[in-house]
């Protein structure tokens, strides 16, 4: 069985996505190391000579110039996306069960009304993950100031999930399989 979820070519155009397992004992150090291995593999696939991802003072991963990237992990799996030439990228994977209270906290009333079943097929976990991925892509640019991922607003336009904050809009792609949700936001 392949590791992780596949992203359709139309969504991942120009993107290099790599998955790596978290090694035992699956703690924060192992999770972070798996993320760095996934990022190094994605950078290599994208043609970057520099495959080291450092951290900026705020703790965000700092990818080599010209190779926008993002990392996410659960306790067992890490993923990294690199999009050469993009302005910013956000990727997120989630395997947690999103409780009704957490759903209510993260999604505004309007978002719950128009984006959850039966109106759409998005799950609370997919929308949680979509906000996280969009936050990484928007926060990576650094022009929007300090904000929290749930302050991003989600809407749907022509079947595409759109994340908005501070006048910025970015499309987000989400998919779930076998208890894992993946969200990808690319700011080109």
């Amino acid at each position, binding site marked *: 069985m392949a590791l992780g979820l596949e992203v359709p070519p139309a969504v991942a155009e120009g993107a290099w996505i790599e998955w790596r397992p978290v090694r035992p004992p699956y703690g924060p150090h192992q999770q972070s190391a798996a993320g760095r291995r996934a990022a190094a593999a994605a950078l290599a696939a994208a043609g970057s000579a520099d495959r080291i991802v450092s951290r900026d003072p705020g703790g965000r991963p700092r990818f080599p110039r010209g190779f926008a990237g993002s990392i996410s992990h659960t306790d067992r799996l890490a993923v990294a996306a690199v999009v050469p030439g993009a302005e910013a990228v956000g990727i997120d994977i989630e395997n947690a069960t999103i409780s009704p209270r957490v759903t209510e906290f993260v999604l505004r009333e309007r978002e719950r009304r128009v984006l959850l079943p039966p109106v759409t097929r998005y799950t609370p976990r997919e929308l*949680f993950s979509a906000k996280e991925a969009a936050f990484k892509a928007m926060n990576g640019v650094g022009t929007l100031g300090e904000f929290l991922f749930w302050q991003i607003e989600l809407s749907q336009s022509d079947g595409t999930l759109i994340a908005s904050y501070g006048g910025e809009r970015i499309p987000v792609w989400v998919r779930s399989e076998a208890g894992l949700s993946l969200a990808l936001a690319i700011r080109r």
Partner: protein
Amino acid sequence: MPDTAAEARQRIRTLLVELLGNDRFVSRVSDTESLRRAGLSSHALVGLLVAMEDAFGFEWRDDVEPEALRSIDSLAGYVAALRN
């Protein structure tokens, strides 16, 4: 609602242990360290914020500053300020 930030810090640590199911994270994170940088997931952070609403009897403002949610110390300071 706790009277002091010290009481709030202790209660937040207890909430984290209950949320995570063990004390491994709480035993190694300092009061002033960034919870996210220390490895707390975004899902767990939101779970903590929801648990704090129930434990302390308040609701987070929609426009809460990210800095207020950074650490056990800043969370406890926010709660103590509400009390005062």
